[in-house]
């Protein structure tokens, strides 16, 4: 088997989707680069977005399908909606999810509600690719996750892969999906590697994954938090505590059954989300467990999230902001011993 980084896996999924369906197009700021300098060698496709994820698409598929835009997210997100309704399968890039607020209307009120409020005759098969996450020393306006903003809105689907395998499989599905999907890529995971088979298949949306089976404590980890959860589980296994780690991967629809099954087994639960705490995914999952598995719980669920603050720039403060392996280990001990 070959190893791919998350970045490579996403790039591959994009290439395959472009090849398999000519209705797939991509719009975003500097997703290729070199617009306006077509006459100079070496300028075209020299960017591929700030992380190089979309590089090569322009060269292979041309400027009609790979469209660098101006800084007009409300404009081209709306255009994606209209294009999706009328036959294309647009992918649009929100360069950082922190820019959500300049184009939230087109997703929340148009993409998400049109099928419903206009009588079900059409659908809006579009994908928003966006970059999330702290730990990059990128400051308050380039480090948020904002999962819950999108997950709150009926009509949207929300997906956030942890590793390259899931990234490829889920993006293939997202692009084929007939509903609008927000596909969230974590900037601190782009360079992480794992095996991805050559003939990687689409992974259905709405199916979580048990990243580590265990019997004592259930850890539900949101995207990058799987990294720390695994570290913590590994360490604590030395004390003979056996953790099960569940990565929901899709937050809407959420694979509730997978979560509940594990909770029923362990009765001890930790939910980890690097987002701000209030009305977060962590709140949602915790509330679901407490409602549906009340009698199975042996002790209170522990939520581990960022504090209710913006994301600070300075490393010691940002490290404090992000849930840590240490905090997770403490929580494991606490729920285990309760």
């Amino acid at each position, binding site marked *: 088997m070959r190893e791919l980084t998350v970045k490579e896996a996403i790039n591959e999924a994009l290439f395959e989707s472009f090849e398999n369906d000519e209705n797939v197009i991509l719009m975003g700021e500097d997703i290729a680069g070199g617009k306006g300098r077509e006459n100079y060698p070496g300028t075209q496709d020299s960017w591929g977005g700030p992380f190089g994820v979309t590089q090569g698409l322009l060269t292979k598929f041309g400027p009609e399908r790979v*469209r660098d835009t101006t800084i007009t997210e409300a*404009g081209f997100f709306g255009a994606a*909606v*209209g294009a999706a*309704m009328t036959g294309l399968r647009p992918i649009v890039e929100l360069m950082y999810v922190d820019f959500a607020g300049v184009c939230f209307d087109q997703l929340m009120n148009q993409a998400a509600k049109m099928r*419903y409020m206009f*009588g079900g005759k059409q659908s809006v098969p579009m994908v928003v690719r966006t970059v999330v996450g702290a730990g990059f020393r990128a400051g308050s306006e380039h480090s948020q996750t904002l999962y819950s903003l999108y997950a709150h809105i009926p009509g949207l689907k929300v997906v956030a892969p942890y590793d390259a395998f899931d990234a490829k499989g889920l993006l293939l599905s997202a692009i084929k999906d007939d*509903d609008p999907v927000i596909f969230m890529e974590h900037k601190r995971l782009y360079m992480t590697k794992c095996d991805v088979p050559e003939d990687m298949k689409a992974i259905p949306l709405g199916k979580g994954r048990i990243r580590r089976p265990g019997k004592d404590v259930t850890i539900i980890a949101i995207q990058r938090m799987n990294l720390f959860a695994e570290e913590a589980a590994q360490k604590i296994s030395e004390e003979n505590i056996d953790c099960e780690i569940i990565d929901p991967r899709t937050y809407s629809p959420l694979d509730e059954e997978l979560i509940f099954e594990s909770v029923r087994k362990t009765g001890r639960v930790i939910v980890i989300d690097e987002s701000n705490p209030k009305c977060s995914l962590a709140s949602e999952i915790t509330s679901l467990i407490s409602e549906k598995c009340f009698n199975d719980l042996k002790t209170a669920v522990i939520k581990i999230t960022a504090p209710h603050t913006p994301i600070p720039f300075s490393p010691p403060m940002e490290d404090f902001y992000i849930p840590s392996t240490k905090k997770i280990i403490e929580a494991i001990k606490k729920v285990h011993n309760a």
Partner: protein
Amino acid sequence: MNIDKNKLNWIYKKLFTIRFFEERIKKIAKEKSVPGYLHTCIGSEAICVGVMSALSDDDWISSTYRNHGHAIAKNCELKQITSEIYGRSTGICKGRGGSMHISDFDKGMLGSFGIVAAGPPVVLGAALQEKINGGTKMSATFFGDGAIHNGAFHEAAGLAKLWDIPMLFVCENNGYAEATATDWHLNTKELKDIAKAYDMISYQGDGNNVFEVHQITRDAIIESKAKNTPIFLEFKNYRFSGQYEGDTQLYQPLEEIEEAKKNDPIKKSIEMASEYNFSSDEIKQIQTDVLNEVNEAFDFAETQPWPNPEDALEEVYVNYPKELLR
């Protein structure tokens, strides 16, 4: 202007349908026999009909909350429209949309948006799709004078020009955005000059003259397609209706309303009928037919079944586990 008799018949029929329809809506609004907000478009008939008469049946449009006229002129089923306003299960959106969101994808209506300036970006997308797929459908987005300051309009206009997208930005300048007069809120001398920011071709026309609207739109479609460029159209008229039914309209001076009535688009179209070889009997006949149709649509709607409460859970997504919709 050469317009064939069929189209002329269609034009008069639609003009009267919209007017009769909206008058009936005003009545039932007073009696509070329908739920929710109602935004009627009395005074907009010539714009709705004039633009649509230049478009083909399967061209793409977007509308706003003030959409009855657009829907009627885009040949949506009158009974279904009415039933939707009554919130009935046979409504054009199955009762889920209501007056503000009347829309029929099968008739090329991409949507009626409650958010000011939400339509232009969406129609830009449909037009982009036509361009990419080599399609021939034209695209037109309707919006009011109030939308021209809004960022979403500007972003769509800028992209349309940059990407050489043939489409029409159709602005109905009816003198008011809610309780605010257009002549106050404009920065440019003429509203259409907003298009200068995009070096976009723009034209202005009398929104009370259905034939002028028709001709300007027809020419603009040809030019837009030929030059592969968006075109901005401003049609001036007057908003006789309030912002919504129930609006006291105190901010509209009475003398202004009286003055505007002289240019009522329906009155004007009747005055012009002889130029187009319509006898007054023919006009009356159309009116009678149309009024019957409107009345039938309301009779129909009033007696239609309500949706089931649980229908609220339908068609949120194409695919989503039903049990997770709670």
